[in-house]
């Protein structure tokens, strides 16, 4: 029993004279209209564009001339994706810059204020100053945010009667 699919696989090889039909295959080809049509298609396919003219000497000459004039082929360096490398370097530089410019949070998760950042940056210079010079520096910085907040309220027991009465009035809206 001849398999038509196997015939189809072998047709190009037989048509290119790299293989030959066996006797049973040749008989099948005569009897099977399907395979006979495929065989005609394959033989026509081999002949497709048989008249195409390519002057191989001319092509060879042109190719070797072009290769000579083109210089060395692109090597490993030429194949490195430079754009990607440059983008990676820029990204790395940006990360390093951010690490210096944006202070990291402390253990409690609080970010240092601008003043402490400035102070940290000034530390080496401050070490060389005497006490009076340090005082003048502190005055020039002005009051810290902590100084601006109200102090701790005195204990109620420390208030006089009149102060206590005044406080109760203010809290009660009277």
């Amino acid at each position, binding site marked *: 029993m001849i398999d038509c699919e196997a015939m189809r696989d072998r047709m190009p090889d037989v048509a290119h004279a790299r293989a030959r039909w066996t006797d049973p295959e040749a008989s099948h080809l005569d009897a099977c209209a399907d395979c006979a049509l495929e065989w005609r298609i394959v033989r026509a*396919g081999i002949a497709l564009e*048989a008249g195409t003219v390519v002057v191989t000497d001319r092509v060879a000459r042109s190719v070797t001339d072009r*290769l000579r004039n083109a210089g060395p082929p692109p090597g490993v360096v030429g194949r490195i994706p430079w754009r990607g490398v440059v983008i990676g370097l820029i990204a790395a530089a940006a990360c390093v810059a951010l690490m210096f410019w944006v202070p990291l949070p402390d253990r409690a998760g609080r970010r240092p204020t601008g003043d402490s950042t400035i102070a940290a940056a000034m530390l080496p210079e401050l070490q060389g100053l005497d006490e009076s010079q340090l005082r003048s520096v502190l005055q020039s910085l002005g009051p810290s945010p902590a100084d601006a907040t109200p102090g701790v309220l005195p204990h109620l027991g420390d208030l006089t009667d009149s102060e206590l009465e005044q406080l109760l009035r203010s809290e009660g809206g009277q």
Partner: protein
Amino acid sequence: MGPSCQEALLWVGGQPVTDPELVAAWRGGDESAATQLVHRYAAALGRYLAASGAASAEVEDLVQDTFFKAFRGLHGWRGDGSFRGWLYRIAGNVLKDRFRQNKGRVFLEIEEHDIVDAADPAGELAADEMGRQLQAGLRRLPRLQREVFLLRVQQGLDYSEIAASLGSTPGAARVHYHHAVRRLKELLA
């Protein structure tokens, strides 16, 4: 059919010169090795490009581009695969680039010289007719099926070479070929 049979086409001093040997020679600075490879495959490449839709006036130029790019890009060819399959892959890309440049020129021109000569007038007429029908049928196939059919039938590549050429597997190439033949049979019946 193994690559050793297909590639040992030229003989020097009684010894076959294979494609990898010629490639190695060219890499070593032997310009004549490139010339030999061009002589070996230029005509077949020209027929393949013409059957794939290249205008006859452009075929030689495309063949030249294919070889130029092949030699310039030899670092991309793994010596374990077929040089011929790799060459057809480049040819396909060169043709696609040309189609893009030409903004989708008409596919598959039919010219008088396209049809094979036959010894007897009746046979010639039949061959003409079948050739025309086949070209018309090829035009209606999906691109991959058309390429596989041409590589298998017109160029005589085996499935592994076709797979290497199209970046596929031999099994997939075989399936595409069977689909192409069945579809052509429907169109030509």
